[in-house]
């Protein structure tokens, strides 16, 4: 199977390393970062590209743009792993449309295009007889989309709720364990690379809200946008509040919740018993699903990370390979 890899950051390089380390029958024929691109129908030398990137150089040639890779490279699947833009989803959205029109499957970890334009992209994929997969957009390594779409097919989901943001979960874990202030815990998260320089997107609950929109629109048959999510972040939490919770054997976690029947999407800090299955430590994610046939299920795993997110992308790629792509 030949892929074009758009984005060579944490996720893109994780995918490249996994392809190098394991025999996955995947050949990369197109590659791009923000400033350069490479096209090679015989397969790009990934080790060399990783080395260039490691030296701070572009992965490819300055005269080949990401758009060139999408439009001209010879590939079966476009792997779109560039930064999320929650307002316009561009330039990823345009690239995905172009690939689908070229009858190429698309696998992405980018939340923007899926949250904003899923119905359109799905219709486009169907019209062109190709797959559009996005497992990595929600909860990194946890195969949640697959479980909901395949394993739990036939179930009616009455409620879906959980911890969707590892950065917030890390901060809250540390505030509870050490009595740190929000600012102290955030500084620690930054030092460890768990929080961005501008943490707004995580700590205000926007990241969790987008994931709810993706699940609502692609799995639960709802039609929602980011503006429909009732959202409160964790920036105002105090160590006192966590102590008051602990006095009653509870703690506080940022919980995303969807109740399809009520049309309700909500992200907010909630009081939760310490022994509750959703109380996971550090940067872990955890999601509970209430269904009519299967009962209640809880999924726990790493929600982010280079290799972990690559795992979800590769799962999608091999799914497509086993169902569609002939040869390798």
């Amino acid at each position, binding site marked *: 199977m030949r892929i074009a890899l758009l984005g060579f950051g944490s996720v893109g390089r994780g995918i490249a390393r996994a392809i190098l380390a394991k025999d996955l029958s995947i050949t990369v024929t197109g590659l791009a970062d923000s400033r350069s691109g490479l096209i090679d129908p015989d397969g790009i030398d990934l080790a060399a590209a990783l080395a260039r990137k490691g030296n701070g150089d572009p992965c490819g040639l300055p005269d080949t743009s990401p758009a060139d890779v999408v439009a001209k490279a010879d590939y079966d699947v476009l792997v779109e792993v560039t930064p999320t833009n929650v307002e316009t989803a561009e330039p990823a959205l345009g690239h995905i449309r172009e690939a689908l029109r070229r009858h190429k499957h698309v696998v992405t970890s980018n939340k923007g295009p899926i949250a904003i334009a899923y119905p359109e992209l799905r219709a486009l994929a169907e019209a062109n007889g190709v797959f559009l997969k996005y497992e990595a957009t929600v909860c990194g390594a946890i195969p949640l989309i697959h479980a909901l779409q395949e394993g739990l097919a036939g179930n009616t989901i009455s409620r879906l709720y959980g911890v969707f943001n590892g950065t917030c979960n890390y901060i809250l874990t540390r505030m509870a364990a050490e009595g740190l202030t929000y600012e102290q815990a955030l500084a620690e998260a930054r030092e460890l690379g768990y929080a961005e320089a501008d943490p707004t997107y995580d700590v205000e609950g926007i990241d969790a809200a987008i994931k709810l929109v993706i699940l609502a629109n692609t799995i639960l048959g709802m039609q929602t946008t980011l503006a429909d999510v009732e959202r409160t972040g964790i920036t105002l939490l105090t160590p006192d509040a966590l102590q008051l919770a602990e006095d009653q054997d509870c703690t506080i976690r940022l919980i995303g919740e969807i109740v399809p029947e009520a049309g309700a999407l909500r992200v907010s*800090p909630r009081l939760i018993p310490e022994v509750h299955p959703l109380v996971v430590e550090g940067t872990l994610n955890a999601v509970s699903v209430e269904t009519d046939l299967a009962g209640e299920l809880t999924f726990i795993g790493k929600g982010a990370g280079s290799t972990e997110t690559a795992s979800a992308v590769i799962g999608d790629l091999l799914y497509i390979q086993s169902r569609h792509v002939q040869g390798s």
Partner: protein
Amino acid sequence: MKLEMKDQPGQLVAALKPISAVGGNIIAVIHQRETSAAAETLDVQIVLELPEGRLDTLLELFREQGVSVVRIGEERLLYECTLIMIGHLMHTDLSDTVDQIDRTGSAEVTELSLVMPAIDSPSSARITIRSTTRAEAKKAIGILRGVAERKDLLIIEPLEDA
């Protein structure tokens, strides 16, 4: 509730056993000897707390024990839920915030723990609300949400089971 039972040794204990069996808590037992003309039965009034939805089980157990329930009094404030509030709680009139719940008649604030931090920084409080039913508790939380919005407070609600 008011219970009627046979006036025989051991009857009262037999009547009280099912209460703990369903996780209830006896608050008071009022024992009246000068009872009905026949004097073969004994009237006992019991004030108790029960977890939500256990009343039917309890009545069933009473029946098995041969204890008949003469009258069931008003169900009161048996549902409990706890929230945390963060903000300038004192400056925004905490007693008025509590009043808004108490005024409903179907829910009341039964416990409040306040932590006062350094001057001018937001304070945190844990507040326990008791209500007759879960629906009333939801209503009370709704009121609190409205108050929180007006007073710029953060409310941390419990994660409830559906």
